[in-house]
């Protein structure tokens, strides 16, 4: 006698046996659960909760507005229009006068036509290994400038977080509930399109980043494309599904590590350049994907940074948290 399995009753064969012996009427259990009613109820409850919270918030706002009428503020608002017009007019006149003193565009004697431009154009490909001169210029010759730009993005995201991030408590709950108060919650049309478009957008963004040293593009543009794809995914599927692959923890790790690696790459350039050493990283043949030394890696780090910042701005303005 063979031994019976412990979960024999639930196996396919035992069900067939029961069916054949007439013990069980149905071969299979009903798989589709009828929970649309339940879902609707929960949705309604959520909506009423959200409406209550909205009322509470509006009342608080009204109390705040009525409590302190500022004389100073009223006077300031009256003056504000006049001063703003004056400042704008003076700025315009000043800038127009400056423009009229500029040399004509395209003349050979202009200060823009000097040794630096010539060197970028003639020796750029040879020295940086990047076919796209602009990328070679901003990531290699003027790497310090681009590092500052990337830090500006980091600081901007941090400042928006200081202003808009809601830490905890009742307010967080209410803002999370308001996240899509009037928006369609699970719109099938948007979701089907997002299924189709989001992967294409991601792949295009990755292509633009990886091809930054070969064709127009690079870290900044590719990163913003990926950020736009993330925003589309969020608006189609909501934050719950997005947090499976992009939440606050991953945001922190990706952003900080990208900045650190970026600074490592650039400090190598600065150290070698300042001490007059040769660059030991092989440049490869211009035109290949893996060429031009560290530019490819710097592009990837910049792209991560920009994508994270774009998504963080969207999420912070929408619900006050990542």
């Amino acid at each position, binding site marked *: 006698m063979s031994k019976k399995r412990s979960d024999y009753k639930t196996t396919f064969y035992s069900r067939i046996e029961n069916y054949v012996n007439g013990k069980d009427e149905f071969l299979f259990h009903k798989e589709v659960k009828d929970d649309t009613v339940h879902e609707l109820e929960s949705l309604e409850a959520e909506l009423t909760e959200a409406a209550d919270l909205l009322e509470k918030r509006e009342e608080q706002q009204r109390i705040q507005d009525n409590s302190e009428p500022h004389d100073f503020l009223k006077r300031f608002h009256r003056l504000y229009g006049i001063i703003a017009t004056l400042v704008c007019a003076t700025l315009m006149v000043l800038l127009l006068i400056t423009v009229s003193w500029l040399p004509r565009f395209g003349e050979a004697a202009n200060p823009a036509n000097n040794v630096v431009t010539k060197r970028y154009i003639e020796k750029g490909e040879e020295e940086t290994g990047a076919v796209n001169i602009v990328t070679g210029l901003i990531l290699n010759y003027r790497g310090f400038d681009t590092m500052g730009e990337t830090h500006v993005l980091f600081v901007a995201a941090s400042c928006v977080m200081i202003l808009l991030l809601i830490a905890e408590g009742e307010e967080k709950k209410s803002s999370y509930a308001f996240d899509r108060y*009037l*928006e*369609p919650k699970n*719109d099938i*049309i*948007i979701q089907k*399109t997002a299924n*189709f*478009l989001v992967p*294409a957008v991601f792949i295009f963004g990755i292509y633009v980043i990886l091809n930054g040293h070969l064709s127009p593009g690079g870290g900044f543009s590719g990163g913003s494309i990926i950020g736009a794809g993330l925003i589309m995914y969020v608006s189609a599927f909501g934050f719950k599904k997005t947090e499976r692959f992009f939440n606050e923890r991953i945001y922190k790790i990706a952003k900080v590590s990208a900045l650190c690696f970026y600074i490592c790459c650039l400090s190598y350039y600065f150290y070698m350049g300042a001490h007059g050493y040769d660059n030991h990283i092989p440049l490869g043949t211009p035109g290949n994907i893996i060429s031009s030394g560290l530019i490819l890696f710097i592009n990837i780090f910049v792209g991560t940074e920009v994508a994270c910042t774009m998504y963080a701005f969207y999420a912070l303005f929408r619900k006050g948290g990542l």
Partner: protein
Amino acid sequence: MEWIKFIMAVICMVFAAVMEIIAIYGVYKFKFVMNRMHAAAIGDTLALFLGALGLMLLRSSKWFSYKIIIVVIFLWMTSSISSHVIMRMEYNIDTKKVEEETGGK
């Protein structure tokens, strides 16, 4: 042959520009959301298609045409989706009702 292509491309581009102008005029002319959405959709579909067709005729290379076709498909999908979202928002908020209740403010 080059000639006819060029003239056809120019006709397409001019029609695209005219359609775009009509779309912009409609967006500023109408007052209600859905009417404006309808007017703006002309610019997103017909004007875009005619402009792309003109570009394809002007530069009659194979790969360039493929790229333009992909761009047109992408924009047709996304613009209809954005119209759909605007429509849903309008349906949920019902601005006309709100305006009647608050007296046009």
